């Protein structure tokens, strides 16, 4: 039911605009800081993405053409222009995780959550995507949840134990 909320056209509330202004000001409203600004903005938007209204707002506020803002958003893997979820689960699909058994991890996560890659659960809580190596190869196979790294995920118990932390709400964003 929550998922309808993400489609709301009122993404850019006054409160959010205010927070975005603060972020832009923290970077001195400097156009060379666009990548960092967008990353920080994405962090505070529910469902972790940059909605079109926000991209437009940033473009006007910083006097950067919208096309340039989208050049950056569409280029970088860490920026996303479609709504994801409260918790973004990134499964590493690079070579070290592959040879140490990430297909088991992929299967386990997708079965446990009942969603496929690039999908969110109906309550809007989890989103799964695959991602290139994030430098946790020494504890592969590995995944990230909202940037936090978990490794050695070779048994269903270990995968469940990580998810349980989020289900119980014991991990804060």
């Amino acid at each position, binding site marked *: 039911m929550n998922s309808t909320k993400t489609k709301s056209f009122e993404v850019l509330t006054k409160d959010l605009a205010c927070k975005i202004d603060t972020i832009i000001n923290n970077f001195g409203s400097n156009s060379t800081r666009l990548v*960092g600004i967008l990353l920080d903005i994405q962090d505070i938007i529910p469902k972790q993405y940059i909605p079109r209204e926000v991209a437009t707002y940033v473009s006007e506020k910083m006097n950067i053409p919208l096309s340039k803002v989208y050049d950056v958003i569409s280029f970088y893997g860490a920026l996303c222009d479609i709504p994801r979820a409260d918790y973004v689960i990134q499964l590493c699909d690079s*070579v070290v995780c*592959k040879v140490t058994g990430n297909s088991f991890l992929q299967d386990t996560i997708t079965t446990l959550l009942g969603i496929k890659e690039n999908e969110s659960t109906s309550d809007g809580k989890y989103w799964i995507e695959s991602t*290139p*190596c994030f430098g946790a190869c*020494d504890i592969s196979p590995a995944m990230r949840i909202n940037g936090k790294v978990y490794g050695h995920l070779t048994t269903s118990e270990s995968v469940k134990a990580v998810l349980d932390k989020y289900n119980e709400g014991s991990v804060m964003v």
Partner: protein
Amino acid sequence: MTKTVSFITENFDKYDPNSIDSYLNINGFTAVRKAITTLSSGEIINIAKSATIKGRGGAAYDTGRKWGQAAAVQGDNKVVICNADEGEPCTFKDRSILSKDPFRLIEGMIIAGYTVGAQNGYIYLREEYRHLKSLIKNAIKETMEKGFLGKNILGTNFSFHIHLHSGAGAYVCGEGSTLIESIEGKSGRPRIKPPYIKECGLFQLPTLVNNVETLAAVTAFIQNGTDDYIKYGTKLSPGTKIISLAGNVNKPGTYEIPFGITLREIIYDIGGGVVDNNKLKLCQLGGASGTIGSDSILDTPYTYEDLEKVGLIVGSGGILVVDDRTRVIDFVKSIQDFFIHESCGKCTPCREGNRQIAKIIDRFVQGTSGVNDLDTAERFANIMKNCSFCGLGETAQNVLLSAIKIFPDEFKRLEAVGK
């Protein structure tokens, strides 16, 4: 007997990386103090030259020489960039330095700035290491508070500031000019050279780009002298290297090793051997852009010169061990998927070459390849190698080309299936 050494990594786990006081207790900042109060730029360059250290980001360019060139460029406003993008799969040694010894890196940047005459330093930290951001920010802040950063450091007329910039998930941004584009707030596509970034880099200023490990190593040279460093290694590859060992090996991790020990010693003695005593199928050195070798290379000493003889590289220092549960073709596919994802699309050989080669590899994986497929893939791979705009496209096919050379039967067998 342990075969690892500790020179560049000597501070690991010796102090609290969140506290400059704790770092000062283990002789922290003696290198910066020594450099900027007693040494000239030329003397520091000579120290780097005497260590004969080659850049640790992958390209292995002589660091002393690079610093000499950077210092010689005219200009009173220059930039030093620390490349902490570490995007090469099977490479995480910079993460270890950043998280366990951030102050040694900061010292290295200050020393680099002093040596080449720069006022500003930038750390370009990959987004994937965002959990290290607050640690590094704090290290910069505390260094500033103690007066090792900022205006007139230690009462000299040398001033230097460090800024932290975040990447946003693009491997190609590890390439020097692309990294600069990214710091300037743009999408990451490499620049044409010339002009070279040493003359015209970030914000059009003369720019020196160095890897995390390279900068940390220079701090160690200034602090401890180079004799204790060059006593390790071989004549042509003196010293030590920090490696990222991973894959189907019992003890994956970051290790500092002396150059000259064999891959067998690295994988079996340091790494505890292949998991479940499986048979080693192949290793890949230097990350996804590196070549592969079969078990016949195990007795090769890990040096620039010996690895080159068997078609391997040191590169970023990644050592990936793969056992015989993985098919060569599936391994190649995994690397190919990575490069398709990471190609920036600026030049045709890499953008289209990767795509066409992927189609052929997929046919091999599915057992539906045709008679000319292997030749075509090899031809395209060579075009990419020779004609791509940047290092990504030039090296993306190292895996395929070396796999065809080393495991021809694996491809032949699959070819037969398709007929």
